[in-house]
C-alpha cells in the first residue's frame, strides 16, 4: 500500500505541464540521439546538462531518464531500416531487423521493437519501484566498512567492462588516481594541484564527461565512413505484425524483460550486454537457429526488449546505493550533484518527490515513446540525411559552451580538451573509457569510506571482516577477482 500511495504522489508530481513537457523533450531528444550514429545516449545526456541548470532536480532527472531510454528506442529504427546501428545496444538488431526489411516486413519489425521496448521498459520500472526502496532500506544499515566493500565490488565489476580484465583494471586505477586531485576531503591537504587554484576542487565531473564521452567520441567518429546508405521507407499500414509474428514475439519479449532487468543491475554497458545475451538465448531456444540472421522476428523482439529493460533497472543501484553502474547513470548523477542532490540510501526517504516523480515519469515516458516512434519513424529517418560533417562542429560547440557555463571558467575547457584527447587515445588503444570516468566519480566516496573504516577500528583491517555484510562483499570481490584472473590467464596468446 505504501508503494501505491507513493506512486500516486509520484504521478501527481510527474503529471504537471512542465514535467510532462520535459519527459516529452527527453524522449524526443533521446530518440534523435539514438537515431544519429556518432552521438550516443551518454553524449546526448551530457549535452543537455547545462539546460538543466534552471530546472528543479525532479524535472532534470525526468528529462535525462527520457533521453536514456529514448535512445534505446531510437537506435532500433536505423538498425532495422538501414542496417546502421544508431547506438551500440542496437547493433544486434541489425542482424535480423534489416533482413526483415529486405523481405518487406520492416514495418512489423519496427512495431515489435517498439512494443517489446515498451513492455521491457514498463516491467523494469515496476521492478525499480519495488526493489529500489528495499535496497535503500537495507543500505541504511551500511557503515563505512560496508560502503567500501560495495565500492570494491563495483570497481572489480567495472574492470570486467572491457574485453580483458587486465586492460580495463588500469583504467579504473587511473580514474581513482585522477579522483584524488584537489583538496583532501578529510584533512584539507592539497594533492597534485601544483599550486593551481583551479584544481583545488578537483578536475570536475562535467568537463571530464563532456571531454571523454562528447569530444572523444567525435574525434573517434571522424575516422569512420560517412557514406550515405539506402533508406527504406515504411508506410504506417505496413507496420502491423501478423498473428504468427506476434505469437512468436511473446516468448522473446518475456525472456528479454527478465534478462535485461537482471543484467541492468550489474555495472557496465548493461544495455549492450543484455541485448547480445538475449539474442544468444533466443537463438539457442529457437526450433531453427540457422534462420537467425536471415529475418527472424525473435532476433528483434528479444534484444530490443532487453536493452530497454536494462536501461530501467540500471537506475536501481544508482538511485538506492549512489553507485552509477554505467556511463548514462554516471552523467545523470553529475546532473543531480549539480542540483545538490546525492543519490544513495537516504535519497528515497529524503527526496521522495524526486524519486517517485521519476518512477511515474518513466511509466509515462514509455508510453510517449511508443506513440513517437511508430508514426514519426519517417521524420527520424530523415535526420540521417544531415551529414556528420555538419553535426560534429555543432556538437563540439555545445560541449564547450555547456562546460563553460558550469563555473564560467575557461580552465574547465582545458580539462575538457585534455579529457577529449585522452578519451580518443584510449579508445584508439581499445581501452574502456567508461571505466575511467566511473572510477573518477566513485573514487572520492571509496577513499572516504576506507579511511573512515580505519579511523573507527584504530588502524585495524579486521573491521572489514567483522561485519557479515562487508565480509560477504569482500568475499564476492575476491571471487570475482580470482575468476577474472583465471579467465585472463587461461586465454591463448594471439598468433602472429
Amino acid at each position: 500500500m505504501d508503494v501505491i500511495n507513493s506512486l500516486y504522489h509520484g504521478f501527481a508530481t510527474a503529471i504537471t505541464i512542465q514535467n510532462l513537457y520535459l519527459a516529452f523533450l527527453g524522449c524526443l531528444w533521446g530518440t534523435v540521439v539514438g537515431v544519429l550514429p556518432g552521438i550516443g545516449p551518454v553524449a546526448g545526456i551530457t549535452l543537455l546538462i547545462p539546460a538543466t541548470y534552471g530546472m528543479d532536480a525532479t524535472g532534470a532527472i525526468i528529462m535525462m531518464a527520457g533521453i536514456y531510454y529514448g535512445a534505446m528506442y531510437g537506435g532500433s529504427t536505423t538498425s532495422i531500416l538501414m542496417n546502421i546501428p544508431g547506438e551500440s545496444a542496437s547493433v544486434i538488431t541489425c542482424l535480423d531487423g534489416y533482413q526483415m526489411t529486405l523481405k518487406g516486413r520492416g514495418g512489423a519489425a519496427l512495431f515489435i521493437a517498439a512494443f517489446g521496448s515498451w513492455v521491457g521498459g514498463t516491467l523494469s520500472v515496476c521492478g525499480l519501484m519495488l526493489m529500489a526502496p528495499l535496497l535503500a532500506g537495507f543500505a541504511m544499515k551500511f557503515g563505512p566498512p560496508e560502503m567500501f566493500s560495495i565500492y570494491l565490488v563495483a570497481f572489480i565489476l567495472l574492470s570486467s567492462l572491457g574485453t580483458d580484465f587486465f586492460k580495463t583494471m588500469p583504467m579504473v586505477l587511473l580514474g581513482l588516481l585522477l579522483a584524488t586531485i584537489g583538496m583532501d576531503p578529510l584533512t584539507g591537504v592539497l594533492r597534485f594541484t601544483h599550486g593551481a587554484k583551479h584544481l583545488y576542487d578537483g578536475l570536475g565531473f562535467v568537463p571530464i564527461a563532456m571531454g571523454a564521452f562528447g569530444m572523444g567520441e567525435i574525434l573517434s567518429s571522424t575516422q569512420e565512413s560517412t557514406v550515405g546508405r539506402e533508406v527504406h521507407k515504411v508506410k504506417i499500414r505496413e507496420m502491423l505484425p501478423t498473428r504468427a509474428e506476434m505469437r512468436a514475439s511473446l516468448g522473446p519479449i518475456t525472456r528479454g524483460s527478465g534478462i535485461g532487468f537482471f543484467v541492468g543491475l550489474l555495472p557496465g554497458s548493461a544495455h549492450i550486454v543484455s541485448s547480445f545475451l538475449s539474442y544468444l538465448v533466443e537463438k539457442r531456444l529457437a526450433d531453427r537457429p540457422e534462420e537467425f540472421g536471415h529475418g527472424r522476428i525473435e532476433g528483434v523482439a528479444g534484444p530490443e526488449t532487453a536493452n530497454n529493460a536494462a536501461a530501467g533497472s540500471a537506475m536501481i543501484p544508482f538511485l538506492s546505493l549512489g553507485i552509477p553502474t554505467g556511463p548514462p547513470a554516471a552523467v545523470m548523477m553529475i546532473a543531480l550533484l549539480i542540483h545538490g542532490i546525492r543519490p544513495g540510501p537516504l535519497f528515497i526517504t529524503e527526496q521522495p518527490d524526486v524519486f517517485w516523480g521519476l518512477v511515474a515519469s518513466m511509466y509515462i515516458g514509455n508510453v510517449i515513446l511508443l506513440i513517437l516512434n511508430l508514426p514519426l519513424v519517417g521524420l527520424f529517418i530523415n535526420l540521417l540525411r544531415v551529414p556528420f560533417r555538419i553535426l560534429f562542429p555543432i556538437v563540439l560547440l555545445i560541449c564547450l559552451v555547456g562546460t563553460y557555463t558550469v563555473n564560467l571558467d575557461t580552465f574547465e575547457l582545458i580539462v575538457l580538451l585534455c579529457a577529449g584527447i585522452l578519451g580518443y587515445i584510449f579508445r584508439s588503444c581499445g581501452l574502456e573509457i567508461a571505466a575511467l570516468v566511473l572510477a573518477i566519480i566513485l573514487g572520492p566516496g571509496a577513499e572516504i569510506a576506507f579511511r573512515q573504516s580505519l579511523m573507527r577500528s584504530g588502524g585495524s583491517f579486521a573491521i572489514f571482516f567483522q561485519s557479515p555484510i562487508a565480509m560477504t562483499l569482500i568475499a564476492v570481490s575476491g571471487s570475482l577477482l580470482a575468476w577474472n584472473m583465471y579467465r585472463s590467464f587461461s586465454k591463448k596468446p594471439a598468433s602472429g
Partner: protein
Amino acid sequence: MTKERVGSIIFLVFGIYGLVLSLQLPMGSWSEPGAGPFPLMVSILLCLSGVKMFFSEQGTVAIDWRTICKQQQTPFQIVVLTAVFIAALDRLGYLLTSTLYLFTLLFWVSRYKVWISVVIAVSIGIGSWYVFAKLLATPLPEGWLKF
C-alpha cells in the same frame, strides 16, 4: 610497438607521477590515514598493471605508424582549433569566437564551400549565443569588442 604497449606506457607515466608525488604527502598513521596512502596504493597498483600490460602477449597487433599518422589529420585539426577557441574565448568574446570556430571547422575540416560554412557558422553561432546568453541567462564572455 602495439596498442596495448602504448596504453601501458600511459599508465606507467601516470603511475610513476602519482607514486613520486604521493610519497611527498603526509601519510599519517594506520589509525588516522593521511592524504598520501590512498593515492600511493593506487599509483603502485597502476604501475604494476602497466608493467603487466606492457609485457602481455595477448591480443597484440603491431601498430602501422604510417597509417595511424595519416588517420590523425582530422582529429589533430579539431584539437588545434579547439585549443585556439579556448585561448581566444575571453579575448574575443563568445559570439565572435564561436562563429570563427564553427566556420574554420566547416571550411577547413569538413571541407564545405566558403559561403555554406559562413551561413551555418553565423546562424549556429548567433543561435547558440541567443540560447545560452538570453534564454538561459548565462553570462558568456564579451571580450575586448564587448559583444
